[in-house]
């Protein structure tokens, strides 16, 4: 059972192998966020319930191209920092700048799926485009980055269940960007599921709640 904690509150005492979103002070672990404390299995962590998207290496994110230069594109990753994709990241090899123009590959406004490859100086986020890097969708939604990151890192079944129950093609970025492809009915169903995620601070029982809402949707459209 997770407990709600506020900054400065003691989450656990003792020795733990790993910890995140807490401050270790002697034997005490103090929360640095408002969140749900999870203690067990030699680890202590606080799941944030609010705040901006904080990029982490390995995160899968979806962003929008905001600037294209010959050798690099700037991506808005719904965070306080921008992401950058270098031209050679698309080809995984060195390229000749005199013969190459990145604007032939990506354009302003394109949605791009990528992994956070490295973060330099805590601010410059370099991305590696995904195999299916070009994201095409009929609707783009934004959900709380803190929750999206939790769903993403906890390997929740929520995204696959939404896909299964709505029949839409859904791509969820750890940064809270959700791209949906499908007809209007499917998009509306996904929106309803995302509203459930947004409306709940309590992350427990979210999976069942989404099934309940989407099942109701299915019944009402059938009748």
């Amino acid at each position, binding site marked *: 059972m997770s407990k*709600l904690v*506020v*900054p*400065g*509150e003691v989450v656990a005492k003792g020795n733990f192998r790993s910890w995140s*979103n807490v*401050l270790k002070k002697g034997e005490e672990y*103090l929360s*640095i*966020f*408002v969140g749900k404390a999870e203690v067990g299995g030699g680890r202590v962590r606080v799941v*944030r*319930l*609010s*705040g*901006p998207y*904080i990029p982490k290496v390995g995160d899968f994110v979806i962003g929008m191209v905001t600037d294209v230069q010959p050798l690099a594109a700037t991506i808005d990753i719904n965070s*306080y*920092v*921008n992401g950058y994709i270098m031209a050679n990241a698309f080809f995984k090899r060195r390229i000749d700048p005199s013969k190459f123009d990145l604007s032939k590959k990506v354009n302003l406004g394109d949605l791009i799926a990528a992994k956070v490859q490295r973060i330099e*100086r*805590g*601010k410059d986020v370099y991305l590696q485009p995904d195999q299916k890097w070009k994201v095409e969708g009929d609707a783009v939604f934004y959900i709380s980055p*803190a929750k999206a990151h939790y769903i993403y890192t906890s390997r929740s079944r929520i995204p696959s269940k939404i896909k299964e129950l709505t029949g839409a093609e859904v791509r969820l970025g750890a940064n809270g960007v959700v791209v949906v492809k499908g007809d209007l009915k499917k998009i509306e169903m996904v929106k309803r599921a995302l509203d459930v995620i*947004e*409306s*709940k*601070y*309590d992350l427990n029982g979210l999976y069942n709640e989404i099934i309940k809402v989407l099942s109701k949707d299915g019944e009402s459209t059938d009748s």
Partner: protein
Amino acid sequence: MENPLIVNGKRTDGRSPTELRPLKIDVGIIKNAAGSSYIEHGKNKIIVAIYGPRDSHRYGMNIERATLRCRYHMSPFSTEERKSPQPSRREIEISKVIRDALEPSLILENFPKTMIDVFVEVLQSDGGSRSASITAASVALADAGIPMKDLVEAVAVGKVDGTLVLDLNDIEDKEGESDMPVAFMLNENKVTLLQMDGKMTVEEFKAGLMMAMEAAKKIKEIQKEALAKKYSKGDRKNDA
């Protein structure tokens, strides 16, 4: 003494010398802000909104951590006589004081070269507005998901008619012998703000500090309850 401020151990508003004014905090009242809070501390009514962290390329930005900016502003209708909306010397000073009181509690290194804005808007003032602003701003920063070592709570103590009193109201602030706002990070056992107008003896100062610390413990509980009220109900439908 023409008009005593303490009569039979009771102050002008009926409180005992060690009693806090009624305190209420609401969290998440402004939808567009990253975090926000509303505080009613006695007759003080204050809104705090947090924007950021956001990317900043301004000259002089700290490349190692986020820069905290604070704007304390009193609305023209917050006082008995209309207050000019232009920032006064006092408002500029209090903006700085609030920033300095909050900064030690924040882990700003997580957001290099960014900016975090704290907007404090006083809708109604009744003495002790800087303390109430610090208390509310700390809650709003927690609501915005800015990493913090601890919440900050502030309260004033002072001397009125030769008696040490807690949480001075407007008339006590103006007519009293001294006023000492103090802000605490209780878990860290730190004082992040201490100012004093007027005079106190060393003994009075020590007693006053202890009195403020006890009050800060109560304020911290109210801050925690306010955050818990928003985040534990599990449903955001009632949010603004």
